[in-house]
């Protein structure tokens, strides 16, 4: 039926092979769109609505990078990836950027040859249990059945935690979050474990969220962040500094509402001026134009705005800033200076 597409793509691939040596930035600009890997669906982080429009915390990072590079926050092709396919998709060039709550670990960085460009969410693995179960600590869970979402670091942390505390458990591995949720609600497992952010997101979608508690133990460190392939440092820089621009914008009080004004008229704050390109040429050093960061901020606002809009306390997800507050407010979100 579609011989044409098949041969056509082979032909296109043959030609593309000639340009493969060029950098990711050139590829993205030539294609006119950023291919961004996201989850297949996690409320608040990345979810397609009925019209196929993606929205969420991770999606906002993709849109910011697209705006910085291409000038259009909608010039993104979202590629839904599973835990299994995400790294190959990135390694093989199917996507240019992976923003899919992925934990920054040594082996992923060094052995799998990826470059984590920063941390956009400090997370940790937690447990959620129905209140009726009457447990107050994860250490009470001896013999419990635990639902785990596979394809993440979760099952490793879980094995380590139960092993080091010398308690037994029955793991129930589940492929998708929706399925895990269904099983947990039906009582096919006693507790559900995943990243605390995921737990909050899942709990928010329950009919009666108050019937469930998140246990106090956080059994792992999960710094989540976007990542790119090893070997293209310029592209890595663009992704890293776009994320930093969002974070710095929050520190400096640049928001989606006032970014246009700040960009049009240079103010007194030299760092704001450098960030928004009214002074110096930081964009040029990245191979972009002067207003790259201004556009990135304009799409979805600064880091704080993105957080509040997608997963903050006023959304159904309802996550407090906590560790993810700006360092000026006692959190860990900290950007290297634009200088």
């Amino acid at each position, binding site marked *: 039926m579609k011989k044409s597409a098949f041969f056509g793509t082979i032909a296109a691939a043959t030609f593309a092979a000639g340009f493969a040596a060029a950098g990711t930035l050139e590829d993205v600009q030539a294609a006119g769109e950023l291919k961004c890997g996201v989850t297949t669906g996690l409320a608040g982080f990345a979810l397609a609505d009925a019209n196929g429009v993606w929205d969420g915390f991770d999606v906002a990072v993709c849109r910011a990078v697209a705006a910085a590079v291409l000038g259009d926050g909608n010039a993104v092709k979202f590629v839904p990836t599973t835990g299994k396919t995400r790294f190959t998709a990135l390694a093989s060039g199917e996507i240019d950027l992976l923003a899919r709550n992925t934990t920054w670990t040594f082996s992923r960085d060094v052995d799998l*040859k990826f470059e984590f460009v920063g941390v956009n969410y400090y997370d940790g693995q937690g447990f959620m249990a129905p209140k009726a179960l009457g447990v107050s600590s994860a250490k009470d*869970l001896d013999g419990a059945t635990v639902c785990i979402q596979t394809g993440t670091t979760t*099952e490793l942390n879980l094995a380590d935690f139960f092993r080091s505390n010398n308690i037994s458990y029955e793991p129930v591995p589940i492929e998708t979050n929706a399925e895990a949720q269904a099983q947990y609600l039906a009582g096919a497992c006693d507790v559900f474990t995943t990243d605390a952010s995921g737990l909050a997101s899942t709990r928010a979608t329950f009919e009666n969220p108050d019937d469930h508690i998140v246990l106090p133990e956080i059994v792992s460190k999960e710094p989540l962040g976007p990542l790119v392939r090893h070997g293209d440092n310029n592209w890595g820089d663009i992704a890293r500094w776009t994320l930093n621009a969002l974070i710095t914008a929050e520190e400096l009080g640049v928001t989606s509402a006032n970014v246009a004004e700040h960009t049009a008229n240079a103010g007194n704050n030299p760092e704001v001026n450098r960030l928004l390109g009214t002074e110096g040429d930081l964009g040029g050093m990245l191979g972009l134009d002067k207003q790259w960061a201004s556009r990135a901020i304009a799409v979805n606002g600064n880091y704080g705005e993105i957080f509040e809009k997608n997963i903050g306390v006023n959304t159904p997800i309802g996550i407090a800033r906590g560790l993810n507050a700006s360092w000026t407010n006692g959190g860990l979100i900290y950007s290297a200076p634009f200088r």
Partner: protein
Amino acid sequence: MTAIPDPSKQGFKFSQLLYDTRYRSMTIQIVSLIAILLFFGWLISNTAANLATLGKPIQFKFLGEPSNYDINQRLLDYTSRDTHLRAGLMGLINTLVLALMGCVTATILGVAIGVLRLSKNWLVARVMTLYIELFRNIPVLLWIIIVFSIMIETMPRPNQFRSGEAAMKLFDSVAITNRGVYIPEPLFNGGLGDIFLLGESSLRFGLSLDLIAILIVLFVGLFISKKIKTNADFIQNETGVRPTTWWKRLSIVILPIVITLWALGFHLGYPELKGFNFKGGIYLRNSLIALWIALSLYTAAFIAENVRSGIQAVAKGQSEAAYALGISPGRTMSLIILPQALRIIIPPVISQFLNLTKNSSLAIAVGYMDLTGTLMGITLNQTGRELETVLMGMAIYLIISLAISTVMNWYNNSVKLVER
């Protein structure tokens, strides 16, 4: 006289490679062989180039490293400190267990439904047709998910047993929960213990000496029983009178086993509700149950069709002859029709067994830890070795498939009608 020149004396011409039928097939083969080798060479060189760019040369060292994850259904001892290789082995065993259980029940169900579909009873025949159409025309993945969801949504939770909302079945020996089914397990008081083979390696395994003892007794019993039968046949041939042997044959098989079981202190261990879950007994997880039921029902629909067409392919004269001899319909089916139909039925049923085994890889949809769940699932995710794990997985499935078809073809040849 004109001499006809002998073509072979002309010497070999290059064009003969193309136009002489003696050489042409050779030429075509060599050209296609070269093309295929070039194609594979191209694939391999691409792979090598890509892997070099990614900095991930092919190596299987990860198989010897600790897996760091737990597997719920493990038929051999396994902890998260064991290697990825052992985790893969657990997966392989789970695949084989599922495939075996599925094949047995699918065959029984399939034969029953195929025969019932030809029943004279209008209602039964229609219901069986409906069953077959329903299962053949809806994807097996959907069936697996549906059965799994039914298990989870409609069966009682373990804590409902405590509050008395649900009760154990069959004299308190079987507990059906939404986490799976607990059935009694055989235990031995004065058991012989296990022997462990292959030391500490990743492929180590233990064998239950109790089980071996019972199997030996069973086989010896069956062997003697066979001897008795041969002897009876002999006497019948000689004298025309067949001695009554059924009680001898039955007792020679059953009595020794009963004695062995008694000697080993056989008793059943019943599941009991303790803490969050039932403890004791054999725990059939709902992922296993869902796959088992769904794959059996699905494959049974196909086997039933094979059985039906096999039965209908037996010439009508056969059954008419049987009725003319006054043989009852039930015995006609079991003595005349089925043995003949079997020869037609077996080959397609073999391929259904193969399909069932391959479909068992859909276990990943419900989190059953089979080969796709361990080696091609968590191990792949954790080590990032897609090429090695997926190729190993495919090779293992290929070996299983070839083994099943070899065994089954051998069986098929042994029952095949020897034609003139």
